């Protein structure tokens, strides 16, 4: 019943609205004088639709020094509110100045301080409005409320173009700075150096794209500065690890090339300290005692460990301290690079929470410094796991839950670790003759002088732990092998596994 009533009055209502619109359009089409009282922003003609052809533009706001001219070669004159300008007009502003113009019914643009813009085109053809603003330099904000009309609008500067369709945007292009496009709402296309990127998204929020980037995401990333040593930029596990390193006399810095926090000086954890200081559910630890810089490398062949051993180690994931290899897809993480010092160092790779089952490879690479004793430990859920490696004869496969060897300069050593343990392998492969576990690292692992220094560190306050770090001799610059190309020491060989290169 209600529907019938509505339908009865619907044609009448439509006719009334049509006649009203026609009257308003006709009234607006008659050229009003520039400062006619009838022209009032924004509820006057500035909000009314325009007929086909060149569109009128109203200045609705003037701040500071603003001038306008009707075209190139014409004299400049002061801009004023409610002034009517047309296609071809040019505006310029001084310091601390701006001018806002409205192109009825739904476009607004603002030229900011120290800029110049020309309305190259402002025309309507049926339901389509084409607007081109040529900005020689400066910053222009553009707001289009897509009120049922099709818009093809752009702001063109000497080096970039911002194409706009129903959105609020801003284009800045002024030497000596890079052009930048901002979308406050909606999506715009930003073209620079023949490449076009989208800025913002439909119903989206603020997005800024700097010229030469791949878009707003890269711009935001480039402009984000987080000090990697700043505590909130680290996970709680990494914070605890670095605090532990500093407590043992290490000095914290950052390597911008390798892109990883760096610790130097300090000493490795002793065997007795290690279990309590582990950050993850799976931890692979490299510790060394000599004045050398060693790098921890971890490879992972996911799947059933026994099957992987029989098929040959196929490295799927790789971890290395820095150069983009400090994180792996399954969650493996190396929080810092330890460049060592007189009392050795320590590097840890760990997984938090669930970790992949598979065949893990752990390797130590000598980057610089003297020959040194080092130790591997792998903990899964807090328990030591057997590591498999070749004996000194290079043929006999042996196992131990803690591996201690000596690494010569420039050399490397690797072991394989099935996770979880493979009972068949544990029964077949014999223990390391040096013991299972091998002797690890404790206070007696260092020479007498260093033992004295360590004792003084242990017996003093945290601040007095610094002298050990201050005695660190800066190692000569070295090129990490990983910087040139990732090196995998867990490559398959014809006999299935090869753990020593």
């Amino acid at each position, binding site marked *: 019943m209600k529907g019938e009533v509505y339908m009865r009055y619907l044609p009448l209502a439509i006719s009334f609205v049509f006649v009203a619109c026609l009257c308003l359009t006709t009234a607006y089409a008659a050229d009003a004088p520039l400062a006619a009282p009838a022209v009032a922003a924004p509820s006057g003609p500035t909000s009314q639709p325009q007929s086909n052809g060149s569109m009128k533009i109203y200045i609705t706001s003037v701040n500071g*020094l603003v001038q306008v001219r009707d075209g190139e070669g014409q004299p400049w004159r002061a801009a004023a509110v409610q002034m009517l300008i047309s296609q071809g007009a040019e505006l310029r502003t001084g310091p601390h100045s701006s001018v806002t113009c409205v192109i009825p019914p739904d476009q607004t643009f603002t030229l900011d301080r120290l800029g110049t813009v020309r309305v190259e085109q402002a025309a309507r053809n049926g339901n389509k409005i084409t607007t081109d603003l040529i900005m*020689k330099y400066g910053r222009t904000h553009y707001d289009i409320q897509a009120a049922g009309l099709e818009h093809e609008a752009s702001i063109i500067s000497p080096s970039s173009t911002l194409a706009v369709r129903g959105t609020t945007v801003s284009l800045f292009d002024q030497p000596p700075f890079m052009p930048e496009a901002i979308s*406050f709402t909606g999506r715009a296309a930003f073209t620079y150096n023949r490449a076009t990127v989208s800025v913002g998204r439909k119903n989206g929020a603020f997005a800024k794209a700097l010229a030469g980037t791949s878009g707003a995401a890269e711009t935001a990333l480039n402009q984000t500065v987080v000090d990697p040593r700043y505590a909130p930029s680290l996970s709680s596990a990494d914070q605890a690890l670095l605090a532990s390193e500093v407590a043992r006399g290490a000095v914290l810095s950052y390597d911008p090339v390798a892109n990883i926090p760096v610790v130097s000086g300090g000493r490795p954890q002793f065997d007795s300290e290690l279990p309590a200081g582990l950050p993850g559910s799976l931890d692979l630890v490299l510790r060394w005692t000599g004045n050398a810089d060693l790098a921890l490398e971890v490879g992972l062949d996911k799947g059933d460990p026994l099957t992987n051993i029989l098929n040959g180690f196929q490295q799927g994931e790789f971890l290395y301290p820095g150069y983009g290899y400090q994180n792996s897809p399954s969650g493996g993480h190396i929080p810092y690079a330890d460049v060592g010092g007189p009392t050795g160092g320590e590097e840890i790779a760990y997984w938090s929470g669930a970790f992949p089952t598979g065949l893990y490879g752990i390797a130590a690479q000598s980057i610089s410094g003297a020959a040194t004793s080092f130790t591997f430990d792998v903990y899964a859920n807090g328990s030591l796991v057997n590591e498999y490696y070749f004996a000194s004869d290079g043929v006999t496969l042996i196992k131990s839950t803690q591996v201690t060897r000596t690494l010569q300069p420039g050399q490397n050593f690797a072991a394989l670790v099935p996770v979880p343990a493979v009972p068949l392998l544990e029964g077949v492969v014999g223990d390391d003759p040096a013991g299972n576990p091998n002797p690890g690292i404790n206070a007696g692992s260092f020479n007498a002088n260093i033992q004295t220094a360590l004792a003084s560190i242990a017996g003093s306050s945290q601040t007095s732990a610094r002298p050990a770090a201050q005695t660190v001799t800066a190692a000569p610059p070295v090129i990490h092998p990983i910087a040139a190309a990732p090196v995998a020491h867990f490559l398959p060989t014809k006999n299935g596994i090869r753990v020593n290169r």
Partner: protein
Amino acid sequence: MLRIRKHTVAAFVAGACALAALSAGCQSAHVAHSVVAKFPGDDADAQLSFWHELANHHLTSNDDAFHGILLDVDGHDRSANYAQRVATLKSRGMLNASFDEPADTAIERGTLATVVVKVLGIRGGWAMLVFGDTPRYALRELVYLGIFPPSSPQQTFSGAEFVGVIGKIDDSQISVAANVPSR
């Protein structure tokens, strides 16, 4: 014999060219046409003509730069000539008391940086606190704040670059949000 002579002459010419290039490289750039001399007034038309004419020039002179700074800071420049502009800036502590460069020398970024940090009241980081607002550290502070592009204190400004930097100074003084069209 002829070959030796040719080589000798070539070496002499190359050396002379290198010497000329080196000696020319150590000289300050000079600006032939002063914009402030063309638009010296304080009225809106003169000011706007000054800024937008300057943007077309390849170099900014000390005279033009100081006129621009005074226009930006005060909204006017009552100084009749370059000496008065320099005196005005020195009296306000914006310009180093030992500054004595000619009006037509291209302004160096370091010199302008020392003026800008005073205009904006920038205290800077520890280096600027320790060593003072020298051209080097003033410039580095402004680069850090995004007001100057990455550059060295000895570089000069084109007119468009100078206008762009003045725009950045304005941005740092006025909230950008205020210029965004209201919604």
